[in-house]
């Protein structure tokens, strides 16, 4: 951002996966809000029944961390950059429901205060980055963590895979929304988005592994409630 050239200042920022207004049609935007609303409503209902006290401060910390981490665009091949989404990391540490709520507040503040992601597209953005990313990340992580009895590092493989697949599936959802909006046909948008985010997902995976390793080293109790410990 420091050396941004004047011409690109005029352009509209559309960071990694934040859809700006204009990319999604009114019906797709509406369906986005409906799907996001149902999913977040369900997440609130589930989190309300299962929330543990320590998850309250951890939700705030995770949301703050993910907001900050999303500002750090890292370069990937071909004059492209990407940044963390964070859905998988949030789901690993908070479980999927509290993670969805934390991610929703990140994405909503980005749209409402920082003009990152459109207002009409907010529902679609919440669906992609809060709902799809958290659910996919959680499912992949919980499936792979069952093999953590093999070696301690399996946890990190699980975290990496969770992050990579979360980003890819969010990119797939984004492509479908662009196609349904007649912005870009699926045959064009899908391979392009999946291709770019395959690289961005590697960065996402590395950051997620680093964060999980950091929490494991400093506050293993925060993971204990979440990771099915296999030695018992």
């Amino acid at each position: 951002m420091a050396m941004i050239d004047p011409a690109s200042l005029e352009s509209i920022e559309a960071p990694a996966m934040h859809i700006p207004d204009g990319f999604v049609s009114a019906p797709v935007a509406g369906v986005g809000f409906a799907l996001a609303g149902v999913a977040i409503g369900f997440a609130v209902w589930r989190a309300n029944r299962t929330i543990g006290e320590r998850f309250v401060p951890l939700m705030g910390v995770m949301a703050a961390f993910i907001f900050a981490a999303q500002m750090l665009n890292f370069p990937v091949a071909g004059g492209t950059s990407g940044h963390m989404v964070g859905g998988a990391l949030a789901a690993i540490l908070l479980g999927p429901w509290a993670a969805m709520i934390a991610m929703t507040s990140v994405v909503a503040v980005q749209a409402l205060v920082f003009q990152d992601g459109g207002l009409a597209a907010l529902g679609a953005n919440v669906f992609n980055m809060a709902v799809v990313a958290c659910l996919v990340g959680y499912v992949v992580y919980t499936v792979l963590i069952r093999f953590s009895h093999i070696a301690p590092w399996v946890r990190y493989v699980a975290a990496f895979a969770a992050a990579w697949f979360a980003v890819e599936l969010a990119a797939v959802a984004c492509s479908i929304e662009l196609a349904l909006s007649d912005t870009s046909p699926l045959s064009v948008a899908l391979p392009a988005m999946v291709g770019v985010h395959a690289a961005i997902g590697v960065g996402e995976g590395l950051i997620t592994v680093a964060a999980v390793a950091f929490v494991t080293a400093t506050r293993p109790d925060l993971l204990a409630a979440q990771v099915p410990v296999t030695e018992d």
Partner: protein
Amino acid sequence: MKLQHYLGLLVVGIGIAVLITFFSPLASSEPDGLEKVAENEGFIKEAKDAPYEVIADYALPWVDNEDVGTILGGIIGVFIVAAITLAAGVLLWRLRGAQRPTSSGGEPS
């Protein structure tokens, strides 16, 4: 539920987030994933400007130095996001269904 019992976690966690924002001027300004695809496939022009701007592009508009403006914008964002999420969490905890009335654990599933 008293958030002050978790002051250490909150200060260290949010402190790390604030520290990260100090690196934001180093962030790559290359077009990112969706933006690049939109440029390549020719639909970037369909993007519309936001109807209003508060802290557009994460830089405080009234700070001359863009690096400083971006860091301050990021710090403001960190605190807004933390405050909203903590408020949501406290509300969820206060109104909890008390399915498992534990005071510490409680695993989300």
